[in-house]
């Protein structure tokens, strides 16, 4: 499918240094943050929207599958080129184009690392809240394409809540602009929101206009430890019911604690079933302090007992360490098994205790460790199944476990994915969450925007051709 003529054309567009075809390069672009793999036939790294436009015009003409990617750290195998073709890496498009302090917006290219944007705007007293755990190793383009979340979503909302406009290259190479700096905008369909979370299946996002807010001046972070996992999950709602909305409310179970302690040596308690990390922020120091004290009291009332039941980080260094630990939880689980499957179910938050209990039951039933951690405050949990893919029997059970977890999420009034996306890993379960009519409409939207089906073939839709994992 990719002959030397096409490689030459790509080289003319982005330069020979930015087209890769060696086996070493193709292997390096064959994976993301999951266990899945498939090599592309060629990799191109454009530097401008115009490059992307010309590349897609070429792909449209030749019928070449195109899979865009940022840092390829997604957890749904959305950026893996299962159909071969072109891996389109946007990582060179890494300029912050404008920070408009008056309108509190920033315009960035898709390949900007999220943490780099945050650092840049925070120098000016501004704040870009969405903070996926991969904040230092994922890009704005990827965050928008998968509508990433993160701990702070509880108070501040998700990536999609901050996107005011996009530059998108369509499947045939045309460039469209959506939205703009105007806050209110009901002129036509909300095209911005259509592309957010489309996982690269509707177009390639090359520029993003985001909304910023003022950076909260004060922040306090508490660590509460619980003898019983159930107490910890009940505490989540106990806090929220008192009218306190912390910036984050994170849950980790005992295996998560053990793994992160082994990796980072933070003196976390190894004899407790769960911890909560709770952060309160705001502009008035007194209010923040009162809130964190109140949170600490509620934790104690609900089972975070003992002298060390609740600890408040003494300084920024301690707080930073705590968050580095939280962000390392997911990968650190690999200390326990060669493979892990991180799920991402989202349930109404009143159902958190039930969800946690039932997941642990599934774990016992199928005799596979399932670690539970996640953003308990907004109902988004990450049950991670630990296994060894080389063991066929384990792999079979993993798939049954995944079915059970998804069924549970839907039964509790929730859904399959809170922030990772569908990609390939959750395709098969889409209908159970959305229903056939909804899928049919979405497929029509897909066909309208990508009639030849060259963008991320095989992703999201259950009936899509392709591609075994």
């Amino acid at each position: 499918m990719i002959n030397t003529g096409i490689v030459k054309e790509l080289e003319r567009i982005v330069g020979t240094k930015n087209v890769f075809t060696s086996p070493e390069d193709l292997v390096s672009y064959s994976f993301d943050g999951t266990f899945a793999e498939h090599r592309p036939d060629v990799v191109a790294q454009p530097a401008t929207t115009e490059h992307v436009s010309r590349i897609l015009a070429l792909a449209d003409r030749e019928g070449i599958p195109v899979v865009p990617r940022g840092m390829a750290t997604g957890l749904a195998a959305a950026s893996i080129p299962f159909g071969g073709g072109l891996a389109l890496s946007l990582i060179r498009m890494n300029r912050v184009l404008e920070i408009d302090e008056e309108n509190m917006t920033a315009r960035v290219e898709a390949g900007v690392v999220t943490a780099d944007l945050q650092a840049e705007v925070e120098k000016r007293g501004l704040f870009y809240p969405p903070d996926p755990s991969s904040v230092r190793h994922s890009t704005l383009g990827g965050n928008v394409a998968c509508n990433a979340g993160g701990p702070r979503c509880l108070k501040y909302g998700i990536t999609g809540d901050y996107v005011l406009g996009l530059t998108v290259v369509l499947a045939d190479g045309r460039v469209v602009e959506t939205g703009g700096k105007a806050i209110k905008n009901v002129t036509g369909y909300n095209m911005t929101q259509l592309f957010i979370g489309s996982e690269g299946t509707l177009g390639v996002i090359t520029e993003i206009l985001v909304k910023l807010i003022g950076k909260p001046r004060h922040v306090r972070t508490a660590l509460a430890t619980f003898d019983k996992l159930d107490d910890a999950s009940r505490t989540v709602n106990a806090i929220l019911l008192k009218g306190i909305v912390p910036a984050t409310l994170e849950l980790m179970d005992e295996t998560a604690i053990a793994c992160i302690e082994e990796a980072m040596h933070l003196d976390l308690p190894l004899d407790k079933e769960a911890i909560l990390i709770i952060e309160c922020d705001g502009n008035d120091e007194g209010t923040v302090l009162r809130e964190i004290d109140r949170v600490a009291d509620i934790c104690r009332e609900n089972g975070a007992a003992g002298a060390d039941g609740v600890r408040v980080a003494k300084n920024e260094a301690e707080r930073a360490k705590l968050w580095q630990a939280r962000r390392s939880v997911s990968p650190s689980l690999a200390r326990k098994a060669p493979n892990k499957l991180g799920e991402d179910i989202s349930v109404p938050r009143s159902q958190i205790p039930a969800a946690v209990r039932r997941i642990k039951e599934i774990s016992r039933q199928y005799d596979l460790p399932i670690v539970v951690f996640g953003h308990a405050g907004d109902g988004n949990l990450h049950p991670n199944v630990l296994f060894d893919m080389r063991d066929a029997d384990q792999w079979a059970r993993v798939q049954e476990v995944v079915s059970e977890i998804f069924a549970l999420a839907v039964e509790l009034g929730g859904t399959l994915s809170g922030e990772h996306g569908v990609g390939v890993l959750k395709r098969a379960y889409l209908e159970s969450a959305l229903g056939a009519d909804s899928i049919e409409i979405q497929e029509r939207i897909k066909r309208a925007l990508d009639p030849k089906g060259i963008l991320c073939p095989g992703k999201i839709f259950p009936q899509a051709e392709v591609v075994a994992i």
Partner: protein
Amino acid sequence: MMKSEQKVTMVDHPFVDLETPTEEQYLFCIRCGLCLATCPTYRASLKETESPRGRVMLIRKALEGELELTPNFNDQMQKCMACLACNAICPVGIKPADLALNMRYVAEQVEPSGWKEKLFGGLLPHPRRMEWGTLPLRLYQKLGLRRLANTLRITRVLPAQLRDLERQLPQVPGRPLRSRLPEVIAPSTSSGRLRSPSTNFAQHPERSERAGRGPSTGSGRLRGLRVGFFLGCAQNLLFAEESEASARVLVRNGCEVVTPKDVQCCGMPAIGYGRQEIMREMAKHNIACFERLNVDVIVTDCATCGSTLKEYGHYLAGEPEWAERARAFSDRVRDVSEFLAEIPLDKPRGRIEGKVTYHDPCHLVRGQGVAAQPRLLLGMIDGLELVEMEEADWCCGSAGSQLITHYEDSLAILERKIDHVQATGADYVASGCPGCQMQLTVGLKRRGLEKRMQVVHPVLLLDRAYQNERH
């Protein structure tokens, strides 16, 4: 339902009978990408192939027989700066930098290259030959640099690169330090000797812990130690003035300094070029050499030598007659700043006016966990203000010889470093590693900053402060 068609076969890797990385060194990498954020080659090249998790994947595919050891594959392993940032951040405990070094060794076992045999087998173990061999270097001859470039198989040396390679070289001493430094120097008997330990170090958090468990620097023995000084190649040949200073500072603070003249290269260049077996022979020689001297500690003022000497125990663990001796040797090794922070130290009464910023050598901050100590030493000097740069522990792009072998990659990383150095407006850039010092000098000269900022070893500044007491 999802269906697995991925075949995971447990084939014997194609390199039977060779020393290769073991499965547990790479199998558990889940490709999360945390290492991407801290890898200097990835952040400079923006290429997954040049990232830690990319290299781990390449290595895995090679060991599983899906990739061949092509020249490109081997070059990807060579591109790693071995700065250890990936090792440090991986929550799973994968060590991508070590794996890349190990794969260089695999490549050499498969197809040994003759010039490495000559360089690492014929030259580095023989200090005298090396001193003669690097005579052209010491004389600043362009021809010598060209020849070196040819030896390292750089076919295309650009004029700009040649200029930068020349910029790397410090004012080379006329004679190597080895021939000038006495074999044994007695502790100084100057007036400072009997004063009580300076309060600075009494408060040093790591001191009490280390002093307690150190193999030879147990409490009560901190003064009057017999220090074996490991004189590294670069220090001996290029930075003689610095090592002279290090020896003076040790003596001044009550140590007897013994400098064996028959030590060989620490072995890091050999490891870097995939010749671990040569490194192990050098290690044995050096261990035996210091065993004869009956010293309390082994001190070096080269970050790379220090990190390598501390690894002798690891590299010789598989050889029964050497394992214990190597471990005992490594346990005794200290970087000079680490050691000075362990002993009661005279506060210099001389001053140095100006600002200093400190660049963490990879082989010191991550290779040895030494970061606070050099800063403490600098903080002791009156008149000298320590200004931290951003990303002080980010690699400078030297990695020994990357400026020669991977010129553009090395420069790209250097530019990021020099941006941060320049922003401090410091008069001195202190760093206890000859490789870093040469690289930083290139970076400053490229921007015409070499007159405003001086690259120095932190202990050299301490020595100057002592020297200034006389004025």
